[in-house]
């Protein structure tokens, strides 16, 4: 072992050892210093970050409030839409996919298209193939049932319910109730801080839009542990790491009860079935509440609210906007039309007030009226007519003669007093103002050349005068109730989801119209005669005993053809609008009704039957409800006596 004895001098190394110890101590001290910094000085920051890492907040969906009619019938509610999603990566295209096709009952074309979609996602770079892609939205219940029964064999296929707005009555009152749309980027920026997120839906028009903030409700959240792998001790871990409060319950949206009576709305819809386009409003003359409002043609809010996907919505809107009959326009509020002869009662009131005419004043109608170099035509030859007969026969000559002696501003003022040519303040949907032309308006419009003929036309509701259907209904309600002009109301009350009333909306009077009650009585007598007299323009043999008063109107339309109309159909758009405005019953009015049939032709022939039918149905409804209430009340009394 002598080769092991050989030794070398270690002296050279000696002086380095202390330095090395120092280096070791300094190096590890740096580490400890850094640990001190991270764990003690910055400990709270890192602990907070560690908590943020593991705790997530899952939003808890709220449910949108229900919209009901005056009788409690649901007009808008929520239903689950069952959407089928696939994760392309997990789906076995050889085995599972044909089974899915069979269970969903897809036809070959659909199968081809969806398979293409899956293959595209599979081929796409990045993580797309591991994410859910929608296969089909809003599938039928039995498909859902079949898919759920076989869920075990369908790896990568998920059925998820998503709440969707549901309108049980479809097109009925769609303009008033409204529909939902997805919030766009601009609106989202505007609504910042109010809990909206991309992909949320909000009310687009009507009550859905006006009462959005009430209907919407408030999202809740729930804290969860993220990335949790060990499920067996999940509850203990949650108890340890999730601070109270662990959840915020969502607040469901408020329910909204409308003044609308959907049964009456149905009756209007039936009455208007023979007409292409138009609008009908029925009001309670004692409150100004809107009982029914129909705008035709309508649309199905279920389709445009997006339950069946963005593509279906875009397609539906493309069709709606292309329709020259303007289905998206609320013709009760957002469009103004010349009132025609329905304006005559107001002209007459002004003339009576100015003492230009008395009920006994007579005018000889020979089929027209000569004024200056123009000849103003009447609807017929009425011979000698007084005020009553002029209203019953809707004699233009009488009103031309009157118009020659009255100032146009007086005619405009009486209309304005009754709320015509001014916004009603209904609140839902954009309102058209309409127009009651005055002298100064004409001066501005025709560059100083005012002509007396304008006044003659204004007296019969033609010329530049325009009103909305809603305005006219309110003005007739004011005629019926003795001069009270109400603000129209659509919402009766706001309720919590358990039915407690949060807010009620009592009737609101806009103005008491100053009108001589004797004058009013003469006018009302005339309006009753329009319906009851056998020569009355609103007399209809089909409804001989109807208890209704009112005035017909045939409004000439300016011959401007809307764009994009088939030349073969232009004749339709040149036809007159048919009006009927009135109230019922005659002696103690309860409702006011206005019917406008766009391009319907004569008011007597086209608008009156609709109004008569609605009033008849309204009577029947009223009686039915009275007797139903009577029978319902009896057992209640019995119970309380026990």
């Amino acid at each position, binding site marked *: 072992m002598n080769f092991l004895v050989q030794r*070398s001098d270690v*002296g050279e190394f000696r002086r*380095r050892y202390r330095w090395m110890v120092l280096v*070791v101590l300094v190096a590890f001290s740096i580490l400890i210093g850094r640990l001190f910094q991270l*764990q003690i000085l910055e400990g709270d*920051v890192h602990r907070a970050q560690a908590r943020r890492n593991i705790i997530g907040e899952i939003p808890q969906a709220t449910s949108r409030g229900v919209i009901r009619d005056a009788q409690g019938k649901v007009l808008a509610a929520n239903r689950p839409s069952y959407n089928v999603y696939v994760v392309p990566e997990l789906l076995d295209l050889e085995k599972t996919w044909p089974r899915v096709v069979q269970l969903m009952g897809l036809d070959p074309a659909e199968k081809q298209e969806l398979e293409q979609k899956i293959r595209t996602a599979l081929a796409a770079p990045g993580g797309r193939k591991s994410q859910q892609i929608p296969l089909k939205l809003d599938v039928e219940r039995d498909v859902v049932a079949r898919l759920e029964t076989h869920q075990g064999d369908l790896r990568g296929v998920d059925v998820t319910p998503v709440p969707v707005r549901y309108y049980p009555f479809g097109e009925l009152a769609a303009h008033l109730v409204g529909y939902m749309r997805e919030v766009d980027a601009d609106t989202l920026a505007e609504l910042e801080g109010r809990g909206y997120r991309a992909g949320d839906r909000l009310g687009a028009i009507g009550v859905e839009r006006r009462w959005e903030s009430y209907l919407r409700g408030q999202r809740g959240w729930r804290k969860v542990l993220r*990335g*949790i792998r060990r499920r067996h001790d999940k509850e203990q871990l949650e108890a340890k790491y999730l601070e109270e409060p662990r959840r915020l319950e969502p607040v469901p949206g408020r329910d909204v009860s409308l003044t609308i009576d959907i049964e009456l709305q149905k009756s209007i819809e039936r009455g208007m079935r023979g007409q292409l386009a138009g609008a009908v409003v029925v009001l309670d003359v004692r409150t100004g509440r809107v009982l029914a409002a129909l705008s035709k043609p309508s649309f199905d809010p279920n389709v445009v609210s997006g339950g069946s996907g963005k593509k279906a919505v875009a397609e539906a809107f493309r069709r709606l906007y292309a329709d020259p009959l303007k289905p998206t326009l609320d013709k009760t509020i957002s469009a103004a039309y010349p009132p025609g002869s329905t304006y005559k009662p107001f002209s007459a009131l002004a003339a009576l007030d100015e003492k230009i005419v008395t009920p006994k004043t007579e005018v000889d109608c020979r089929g027209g009226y000569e004024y200056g170099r123009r000849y103003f035509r009447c609807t017929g030859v009425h011979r000698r007519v007084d005020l009553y007969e002029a209203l019953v026969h809707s004699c233009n000559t009488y009103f031309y003669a009157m118009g020659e002696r009255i100032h146009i501003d007086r005619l405009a003022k009486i209309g304005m007093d009754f709320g015509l040519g001014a916004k009603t303040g209904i609140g839902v949907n954009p309102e058209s103002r309409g127009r009651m032309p005055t002298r100064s308006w004409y001066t501005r419009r025709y560059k100083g050349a005012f002509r007396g003929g304008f006044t003659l036309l204004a007296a019969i509701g033609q010329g530049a005068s325009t009103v909305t259907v809603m305005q006219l209904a309110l003005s007739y309600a004011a005629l019926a109730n003795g001069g009270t002009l109400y603000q129209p109301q659509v919402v009766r009350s706001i309720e919590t989801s358990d039915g407690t009333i949060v807010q009620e909306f009592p009737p609101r009077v806009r103005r008491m119209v100053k009108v001589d009650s004797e004058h009013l009585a003469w006018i009302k007598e005339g309006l009753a005669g329009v319906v009851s007299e056998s020569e009355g323009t609103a007399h209809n043999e089909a409804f001989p005993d109807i208890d209704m008063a009112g005035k017909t109107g045939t409004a000439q339309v300016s011959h401007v053809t809307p764009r994009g109309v088939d030349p073969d159909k232009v004749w339709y758009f040149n036809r007159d609008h048919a009006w009927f405005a009135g109230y019922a019953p005659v002696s103690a009015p309860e409702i006011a009704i206005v019917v406008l049939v766009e391009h319907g032709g004569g008011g007597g022939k086209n608008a009156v039957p609709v109004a008569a039918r609605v009033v008849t149905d309204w009577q029947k409804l009223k009686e039915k409800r009275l007797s139903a209430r009577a029978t319902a009340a009896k057992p209640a009394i019995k119970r309380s006596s026990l």
Partner: protein
Amino acid sequence: MRANRISFRSGPQIDMPLLIGVMAISTLGVVNLYSATSVYIDAGQRAGIADIYVSQVYWIVVGGLLAILAAAVDYRHYERLAYFMYVAGLVALAAVFPLAADIRGSSRWLQFGGFSFQPSEFMKIFVILVVAKYLHNDPKTEPRTLIDLAVPLALTAIPVTLVMAQPDLGTSLIYVLTVGTILAMTKLQVRSLLWLAGIVAISVPLAWNYLLHDYQKARVTSFLDPEGDKTGTGWHAFQSKTAIGNGGLWGEGFMQGTQNQFGFLPDQYSDFPFAVFAEDWGLVGCVVLISLYAFVCIWAIHVASQAKDRFGAALAIGSGALIFWHSFFNMGMVLGVAPVVGITLPLFSYGGSSVLTILVALGMLMNVSMRR
């Protein structure tokens, strides 16, 4: 220290402080590995990872036996075999390229029967041996020039080049630092020191531009600008810092660290076990652990200072340097004071080759200690 020795007979005496220190570190390492991998218990396909602490115990037992063997044979025999072992190590390193199993983009492992091992790990010991032998046989007393150190530097450069090509920046860094530490014991001329500084200053930018891979550069840049990127390369560093800070003074408790238990720590059983330890045991636990590593390093210097010859001293310093640089760089990387390079924490990181290498090195340290 003499009191600890069994002194009824002359001859090799077991170095009890070293033994106890190493056993303490190993125990903590296995316990920590259990916590680090417990997150996989219910993890389905990866549930097997939850059991690797058992394998780690096996490796420590095997490594312990090898260490006893390494300690039992007089270290002066290694001096004779140093060149042979060095060449054998180089052959194994070169064999990696045609034969290696490619794991995560770099080829470091050799399949050997049912086991795969990393020749680059064992090469650390052979490099220490060969440099120690050179110094042993070059008994200068006057200050050296760089030319005097050309041979040991060249002996280091060959394995460094081979390992860089795998590519494995961390391991080649360990070679360089360990050899550098051994050579730091020698006296150098002032002029040579200046030359050395100059060469380093020139070679660093060159290495940056031509030698380092993009992912390696990215790790360095993310170290220099830790806030710059919390999702990409900076993710590991960010989450490990969060885990450490979350530990606080006393720690979240054994198997209670949320960063680990909820899967926010990547590589928690290979490169980041210290983050798990710091989160579970807090500053107090970390100070204990760092003190243990510091003790082993300083003890190695102590052993070197009492070594009978240059070979023994260089061997002791080399073994200590191996522990020091591994532990310092790994903890520094986890703490965000060093770039993220794949350097294991001795006896904490899971891995057979790493455990065996460290334990054999400690066995040789024990060898020198027993024969001062």
